[in-house]
């Protein structure tokens, strides 16, 4: 059985991990979208 601290690390850790993924996609995606929309 895991401890309360481990449960907290799993739940908050997954959240931070998700936020990292979002940033890695969102920042270049916004640039690409703006580029595609305004270049043509």
């Amino acid at each position, binding site marked *: *059985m*895991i401890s*309360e601290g481990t*449960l*907290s690390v*799993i*739940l*908050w850790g*997954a*959240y931070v*991990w*998700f*936020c*990292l*993924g*979002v940033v*890695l*996609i*969102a*920042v*270049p*995606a916004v*640039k*690409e*979208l703006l580029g595609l*929309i305004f270049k*043509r």
Partner: protein
Amino acid sequence: MGNYYGYVILAVFAVIFIGISFVVSKKFPIEGVDDFVAAGRGIPSSLVAASVMVSWVWTTTIMGAAEAGMSFGISGGISYAWGNSVPFFILIPLVLHLRKKMPKCTTFTEFIEQRYGRSVSQMFFIFGMGVIIYVLIAQCVGIGTVFNSMFGIPYEIGAAVPIAIVTIYISKAGLRGSIFNDVIQFFIISVIMVVSVPLILKTLGVENIYNGLVDVATNPNNINYNPEVLSLGSAGGLRYGFAAIVVASGQVLLDQGYYSKAIATASSKSLLKAYIIGTVVAWMPIPIICGGVFGCSVLSLGVGEGAGLSVTSEAAPYIMKLIYGGGLGSIMFVLMVFMAGMTTGGGCLSGAQALFTADFYKKYINKTASEEQQMRFGRKITFIVGIGVIIVSIFLKGKSLLMMDIFSGILFAAPTSSLIAGMYCKKTSSGVAVVSTICGLAAGLLAYFLIPNDDLNWFVGNVLALLLPAVIVIIGSAVSKYEFDFDKLAKYEPDHAVND
């Protein structure tokens, strides 16, 4: 919450997404089949990453992972995450290899035809369409359940309208329109998750969730009593994770949507980057969050099937209603599931459109067809598939998303071994491919229906459906004298013009 909000959401997003598809098709006029089904092979990696991520975020990823959290405790969401990620570690090198060996390939059935012949290609076409139809149905059921549960609008309307919207925008703007809408939907899903998760954890409190789970683990009178609920290595969770590998193998490796996106990526380097970020970095934490935050929270509150929930699929909406009441938060949750279902459905429908447009029409219906006729046929088929899926979904009201998902593994895992072997091993013959697939499917179904233990039959069925074909392929290839010439793939010329 009044059904008025549900209808407004459906109407507003119908206008937005169909509108985007019209703008995209005007801004980037479709110049031929390759442009229609592979977006001209020039989409940047970040857009493909967003598209791959949201395509793999199903309604099941949110609601089914929450259900897995209820069934298996903290290991449920984690098992969902690793089990469903494994097939991408097979798909990514596979599509990289395919691009290198067969540069003018668009659909995986084209590869199968060159590798194993037309009969085997037809078999894979049927499996590929089966996966697409199953995935679409799962999205319809998920979205319909959520709209019904959160707004009280008829399940049938909640299930039908989103797929109708997707059908219209995919047929209008092809893969490029699908990817642009995916990116918009990626932002909506991400913002909702980023805002909601800390709010739930702060409101319920990790300490309270933990104490509730301790009661689930230690109190036999608890409605959800499960001694392994706080175990990371619970037997049930591990079994579920392995079954998830089987289930996801067919859903990933036989879904043309993922091949279309891989081929649409500007270069192999972009493809690798997009698929790694889209799956491992951005997608994997989502089921862990949904299983842990939604599923385990419900358990900790002493709520279960028949005691607060009519089916365990309602775990996620239950928590959102609890946290946000009937206000903005409920709308945000519905939007998240709505977007998840539409992006997954869109990926699948664009895959179906590619299979029929690039591979089926000219081969079986009109050998002298122009590219314009091919695309017109693809659009018609997209509508037929969309309408058929809506009709079937209406009859599946109230079905468990988790059980539907598990059963699909038995149906679709069997052909994956011969697909993978065909890509790398010159000694695997078409006979071995067919025999391994039939044996795997039959063994999986027999195990599921003949083993009386309901806790075991789905697991044995899934394992047999994946492993038996693998064993047959390995032995059959080892003793075979057949040798395939892979140079044939490099010389392949499709029936339509391909952008270099």
